[in-house]
């Protein structure tokens, strides 16, 4: 049967060879592969959808795409956040068109059916057209199958089946905790609106790049020259820094790039901030033991399969739109419980590198388009992800590679292969 053949061939697009890990170019260019990714990855596994600080009050809402499907996140007057398919139960129009906002209800504009913020059907126009025993309770907006809130981060699964959220997030949990720990009250608040880019390339090019420790010296040489101009660091210093730390491939497709933690202000941001702002140092030392401080001062770019990155300044959300079109949203966040000057510095630093006119991110995006075009060439159909396979080691179920190794990318594609092969 064709389906079986196709299932077989998706698995073949990732060659998990112990010496030469390869990924077939069609994963970036084949619209059929993209369609199956939406079905099997984005509309089945756990996908990041939003942060609780985006919906602080009852009536706040935000619309998202989960894969290709429109969903509304809505905070009801019971204080809970609901994730509802954005589709009227009558004739199927969306009930909410704004990106975000505040409303006491959702009203379908076609025939005026009205839903509460938890999805309950609370109004039907000219309702005498339906029998008296019409069961309104059965015609609320449909909630998504599963939702999870991990420390304010909301994840959605459109499937009743598959791993639980705890199973899914498990291997990344301690890194998320450490990332959040830079706030002594372990709270962040997203600063809206986000930076948004769109590029003519596949979504996995962004996924592969955020923890790629190999490209910096080449793609971002321009950035290093800017740092040198401002006398912050020389090109040589930055290039030495890029050799430090580790690249980690976690189970379930997660991964990260890590720079070593330290309490020396010269070598970690957290230590530098503690040195500069005594009230921050005091709050941090009151909350954490020294070993914890060292751990959470490690700078990490953490990828949560399949669509979220946690960076030191922002949450990065990958929104696949077509096989060769991707939107990326960068939600800068404030750390709570720290001096305003720390957040101001983080925001201005973020703007310098990121955004569609930043001094670094557009160079990355440029390379994504180059891979997208190159993948059309079939002389060799495979991209090579073998860097560091000979030297990576396994520690506590993680694969640990040199900071420039493709260890986390291999983790991404192992999970991709697994999800794409599930019946």
């Amino acid at each position, binding site marked *: 049967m064709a389906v079986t053949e196709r299932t077989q061939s998706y698995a073949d697009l990732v060659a998990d060879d112990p010496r030469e890990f390869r990924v077939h170019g069609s994963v970036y260019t084949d619209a059929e592969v993209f369609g199956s990714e939406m079905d099997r990855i984005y509309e089945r596994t756990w996908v990041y959808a939003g942060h609780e600080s985006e919906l602080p009050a009852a009536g706040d809402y935000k619309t998202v795409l989960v894969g290709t499907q429109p969903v509304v996140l809505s905070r009801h007057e019971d204080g809970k956040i609901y994730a509802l398919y954005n589709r009227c139960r009558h004739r199927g129009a969306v009930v909410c068109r704004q990106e975000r906002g505040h409303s006491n209800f959702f009203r379908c504009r076609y025939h005026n059916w009205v839903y509460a913020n938890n999805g309950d059907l609370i109004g039907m126009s000219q309702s005498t057209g339906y029998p008296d025993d019409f069961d309104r309770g059965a015609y609320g907006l449909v909630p998504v199958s599963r939702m999870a809130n991990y420390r304010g981060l909301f994840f959605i699964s459109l499937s009743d089946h598959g791993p639980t959220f705890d199973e899914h997030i498990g291997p990344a949990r301690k890194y998320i905790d450490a990332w959040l720990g830079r706030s002594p009250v372990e709270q962040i608040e997203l600063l809206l609106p986000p930076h948004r880019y769109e590029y003519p390339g596949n979504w996995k090019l962004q996924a592969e790049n955020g923890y790629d420790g190999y490209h910096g010296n080449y793609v971002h*040489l321009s950035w290093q020259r800017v740092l040198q101009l401002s006398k912050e660091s020389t090109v040589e210093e930055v290039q030495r820094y890029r050799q430090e730390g580790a690249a980690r491939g976690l189970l379930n497709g997660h991964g990260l790039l890590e720079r070593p933690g330290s309490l020396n202000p010269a070598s970690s941001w957290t230590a530098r901030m503690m040195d500069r702002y005594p009230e921050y140092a005091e709050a941090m030392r009151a909350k954490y033991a020294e070993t914890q401080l060292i751990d959470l001062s490690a700078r990490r770019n953490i990828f949560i399969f399949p669509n979220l990155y946690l960076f030191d300044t922002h949450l990065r959300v990958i929104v696949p739109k077509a096989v060769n079109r991707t939107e990326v949203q960068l939600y800068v966040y404030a750390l709570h419980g720290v001096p305003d000057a720390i957040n101001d510095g983080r925001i201005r630093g973020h703007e*310098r590198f990121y955004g*569609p006119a930043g001094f670094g991110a*557009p160079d990355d995006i*440029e390379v994504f388009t180059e891979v997208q075009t190159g993948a*059309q060439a079939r002389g060799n159909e495979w991209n090579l992800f073998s860097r560091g396979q000979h030297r990576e080691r396994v520690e506590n179920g993680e694969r640990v590679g040199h900071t420039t190794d493709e260890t986390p990318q291999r983790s991404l594609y192992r999970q991709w292969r697994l999800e794409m092969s599930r019946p």
Partner: protein
Amino acid sequence: MARQRAKASRRQHSPRTKSGSAALPAALTVSDAERFLFAEARLLDERRFDEWESLFSEDGSYWVPIDPAKEPGQGISIISDDRKRLHERVFRLTQTPVLDQNPPSRTMRLVSNVEVEADGAGQARLRCRQLITEVRPGGLGQAGLNVVRVFPASCEYRLRRDGARWKIVRKKVVLLDSDQPHYNLSFIP
């Protein structure tokens, strides 16, 4: 609009208490403003970024907000350059091996709907609309290249007289779709 005109006219007729000098040129006329804006647009279109940078005052800033209702520095912006960062931007474009401007953008800016609002002696506030068009030429089939992109924008300038020249104290460019995703705005919108 009527409100702006009324405000401008009130300012023009108020006594010049600050300078006390009739020798200082009257407020910028619309045709002066157009000359200034056309020349600025041409410097950018001709990629004469160093000369463009020199149009800014020492305390000058350049702002491309995502949400124009916010104040500069509140939340994040597409560009929020103080004078130092503006210099870095020009340095990056002209002196470093950028990828995002290699190949470089060709731009053509149409400037119109110029309005002038006097803003006290030796200062002026201009508003205009710009249609910024851009293309990066390259080989056949290269994703992201060879497509003319159009960026309608609403712009505000605050100028200050500096000897015989007007300097930009603040340039604000509000893209029509400022809150939508953009591909590569590294060419200086």
